[in-house]
């Protein structure tokens, strides 16, 4: 039997206090329609909650939406928490109103990819598929 491509599991979360969830809900629906399993955690997630959820759900990637301008605080906090929990092989990507120079700095820190307003959902889907496929795992089960 030909092996089916692995089902992509992705966690979408909104950290911080901002409640504008239009973008993240559109992305959630687009990912679902692209055949992915989308775990949506809802609003106001702390970095601890996000990483805890990502670990428990064993997702391939975590997507974050920030529109409040707190991205330089929140993305690094999530990266740190991922390292602390030994979950830094999970891909962290995001979207929001983020100036170019901040994008550069965040990507240097380890955020895999940042999308800005107007990015077509197809671009995000294609990016995610490729990035997940490129991930390698050498873990042994038993």
């Amino acid at each position: 039997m030909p092996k089916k491509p692995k089902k992509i599991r992705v966690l979408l979360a909104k950290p911080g206090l901002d409640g504008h969830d239009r973008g993240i809900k559109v992305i959630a629906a687009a990912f679902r329609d692209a055949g992915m399993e989308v775990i949506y955690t809802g609003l106001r997630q702390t970095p601890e909650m996000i990483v805890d959820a990502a670990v428990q759900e064993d997702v391939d990637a975590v997507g974050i939406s920030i529109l409040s301008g707190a991205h330089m605080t929140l993305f690094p906090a999530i990266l740190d928490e991922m390292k602390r929990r030994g979950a830094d092989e999970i891909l962290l990507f995001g979207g929001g109103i983020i100036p170019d120079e901040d994008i550069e700095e965040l990507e240097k820190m380890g955020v895999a990819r940042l999308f800005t307003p107007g990015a077509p959902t197809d671009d995000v889907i294609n990016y995610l598929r490729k990035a997940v496929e490129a991930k390698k795992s050498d873990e042994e089960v038993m």
Partner: protein
Amino acid sequence: MYDKEHIEELNARLKDWDVEAEKQRAHKSLPRFFTVSGVDIDELYTPAAIDGGDDKEYYWTNIGLPGHFPYTRGVHHTMYRGRLWTMRQFAGMGTPAQTHDRFVYILKQGGTGLSTAFDLPTLMGYDSDHSRSLGEVGKCGVAVDTMADMEIIFDKIDLAKVSTSMTINSPASMLLAMYLAVAEKQGVPFDQVRGTLQNDILKEYIAQKEYIFPPRPSVRLITDMMDYCTKHVPQYNTISISGYHIREAGATAVQELAFTLADGFQYIESAIEDGQDVDDFAPRLSYFFNAHSDFFEEIAKYRAARRIFAKRMRDKYGAKNPKSWLLRFHTQTAGCSLTAQQPENNIVRVALQALSGVLGGTQSLHTNSMDETLALPSEKAVTIALRTQQVIAYETGVANTVDPLGGSWFVEALTDKMEAEAEKIFAEIDERGGVFECIEQGYFQREIARSAYAYQREIEKKERIIVGVNDFVIENEKIDIPILKIDYESERSQAEFCKKIKAERDNAKVQAALEKLRVAASGTENTFPAILDCARAYASVGEMCDVLRDVWGEWNESKSAMQVS
């Protein structure tokens, strides 16, 4: 309005005309013409397109005269000839001291209206020294923790002479209480205090999601405040019922119209249930709508809103004072319509949207800055936005006559359509058990998410063209917009100031006041006097909200709210 024979003849001639037009239609490449909201638009509108237009009473029941029931043409007789709309530009500033400086500047320039935006921690009821506030203090608005911050903001500003609007919802009672406490300290009697609160919590559950407590106790907080203000602060507009955020979250024009009016009716019903007289509070209700890009649809939306509201207030809620029938509204151009690509194009979008607000009869208007999808707006962009309004007001001549589009067959037919579609949504809300039930079931949230997703898919499939985004694109575009840098130092100093006040105030007094609030919230007495005492004692927004969180619990969106289809 039109004579039956005339309509019959028109219909007969339209048949022949249609045969001729058919020859030209063959060239058409677009399969469907529809508004931003997906409402289908006919090729041609004539008197025959107006449903019931052959009824003699149609004009009087549906259109009427400006300043007369049902106010379709406007709430005042003379509209902008008497006074232009208020050009109100809402802006946020970091610290209380910076906000104070800006207010002093505005007042020196002859302004009398002050507009306050708060930062997210304040909006969500967290103090600046709370761990959840990290990275968000003083962004998107000013941080107010205790009355001490309010004293800095309004230092030496005579609160009897200014009108202050505060864009705040969940903790609105706390902020108004702090404002009143400052007025009291200045010796200004409460009945001279003027201003407006947004204080529309229902749209938070539906769209903007800045909620703290569950819906029912939250609305009680509002009716308590309405009651207190009717008796003691009669010049304060306690609530501005907002569709803006509903639209921004992805709703269609019809959904914006219907959901917003439904919210308003819910507040009215809750206040009536609370034992208040509709004519005591209704004249101080106002609305806040979005101006999106579909020009005529927006105009029809405003006209329909006035008509629906007037009819319901008079006929359903039994309001006798004509002032209770008036739907007055503020308009803001659609932030969600702005593009990060070719941002200068946004100036044009904003101008057209603002024009629709004016032609729709708005009482006040905020025009967005072109760079808002990139970062916080720069000064230059803010100035262009204001100049846009001034060009409309002084150069275009659209303010010379009242409701210039009234009587346009298209606009009247679309206004009727908006009303009919909104009525269908009201029926659906009733069917589902009312506004609270719909929020709890996630009905509004789900419908909005669906509309937002459908809109996005239309853009991606190019069924809808957004200039610079999915057509007329500049490859490798270089954005030439200055970006405002954010200052992180003010966050630290604000958190320290908050700690300092908490250490220096009379904490026994604070505890006693908070306890009084707990008792009021647990029972049925009006919560506002207790909140006022907390504010006077320098209790913080976070401390007051914590008491209420403890009594009422915290709200979280239901799962059903997120299902898109």
